[in-house]
């Protein structure tokens, strides 16, 4: 599984991704990296979580981020998605700095977190149309129906979210994240609560993104799933990221051992 980023891109601009040129997904920027983090530090009170963390994600790759509970995976994703601020270091997401231009990043990232960000008394379609309008989409209803269909929820489109199972709500949350066709998907344990069919839908979405030259970073505790889906595995441990092996050796025993070791409690 070798990463093959699409080397085609205009320089980043602050305009909302347009769907005129590409009916499916926005074009990835042709130059630069998708995510560049240097010397990142983040503490909660006197408790340091991330320190001197470096990370580079190329366009078109899916990186699975592993780590034991509490090592700062979610904190890192929250910083990348502008939900949280770094104490020190530099962060560039899709060519933009969260400090100077957070709105540009928000237009370009799709986030799945532990919570669904959905309103239980609205229907699936109403929820997504609401978010589509917030993102200023010209055809929010059409986009919402497309995203719902992609996650296999068309037959529950008019159902209120509170009537859906947890797995269905999770799928709808993924549909919400891809609604505005973001350039970078930031998914925090997206497979949790999904059945086998839903996991297939999720994988299809992620493949569609990376094949279009766009980027995905996801955390997971599922070693097999993470290693089989990702182009690169990253391990967060001791406040820093390590890439255990070259891209070509994702199936290697060494990678598996290192990731498994990082997932052990107390690390």
């Amino acid at each position, binding site marked *: 599984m070798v990463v093959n980023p699409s080397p085609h891109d205009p320089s980043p601009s602050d305009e909302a991704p347009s769907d005129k040129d590409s009916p499916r997904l926005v074009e990835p920027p042709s130059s630069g990296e998708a995510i560049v983090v240097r010397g990142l530090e983040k503490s909660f009170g006197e408790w340091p979580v991330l320190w001197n963390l470096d990370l580079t994600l190329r366009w078109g790759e899916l990186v699975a981020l592993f780590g034991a509970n509490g090592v700062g995976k979610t904190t890192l994703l929250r910083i990348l998605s502008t939900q949280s601020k770094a104490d020190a270091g530099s962060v560039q997401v899709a060519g933009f700095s969260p400090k100077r231009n957070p*709105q540009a990043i928000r237009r370009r990232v799709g*986030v799945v977190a532990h919570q*669904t960000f959905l309103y*239980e008394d609205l229907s699936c379609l109403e929820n997504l149309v609401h978010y589509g309008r*917030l993102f200023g989409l010209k055809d929010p209803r059409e986009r919402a129906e497309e995203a719902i269909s992609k996650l296999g929820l068309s037959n529950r489109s008019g159902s209120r979210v509170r009537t859906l199972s947890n797995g269905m709500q999770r799928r709808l949350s993924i549909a919400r994240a891809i609604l505005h066709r973001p350039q970078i998907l930031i998914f925090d344990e997206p497979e949790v609560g999904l059945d086998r069919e839903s996991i297939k839908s999720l994988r299809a979405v992620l493949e569609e993104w990376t094949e279009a030259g766009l980027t995905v970073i996801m955390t997971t505790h599922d070693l097999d799933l993470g290693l089989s889906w990702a182009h690169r595995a990253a391990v967060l441990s001791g406040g820093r990221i390590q890439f255990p092996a070259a891209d070509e050796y994702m199936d290697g025993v060494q990678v598996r051992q290192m990731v498994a070791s990082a997932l052990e409690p107390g690390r």
Partner: protein
Amino acid sequence: MNEFLRPIGVLLWKDILLELRSRELVISLLVFGIVVVVVFNFALNATPQLVTAVTPGILWVAFAFSGVLAMNRAFVREKEEGGLDGLLLSPISRDSIFLGKAAASFIFMLMVEAVLLPVFAGLLNFSPASFSLVLTIVLATLGFAVVGTLFSAITVQTRSREILLPVLFFPVILPVLVGAVEATKQSLGGETLVGLGHWLPLLGAFDALFLVICPWLFSVVVEE
């Protein structure tokens, strides 16, 4: 400008749709407001002279307490399933989020007051058909909604938000409350707009001040 106003409209419509579905807020406020006035009515055993003196106070106690209930709910729904994070991840300004939520609270409170006012008028024997009274209610409710939305956003992060909200909210809103009671007293006494003197401009000035300060404070509060 459109980029600023559009999200406000989107958020307002979402809150109205949610309220139409759940009907949990407006009905609760109505019942609470009516109970407050009925209790005061019986407790004071009001004579016509006493009613004139205490009606503005009773009216605003009912409105203010109902308003606190509304504010308690303003951000709870956003917090429950991470809706606030969803809003903060959207490419819209924090000001728009704040004003959208404040607009929804303002409209819900006005709806409740529009129903409560004739009920109060019947029970306490005064005429609600007064332009100055309506203007007083609108201006004071705007101040309530704006300040209440800010404190709702602050206290929703805490466990004891039901207690903390009124403790923080009432000291700040006191000038509006005093102005509203005084303007209502003069309005019920038959004064015209001109006769209300400085109370209405004072309410308007506080509203303008809150509309500038509160959105800015909100953006500080929601940033981690």
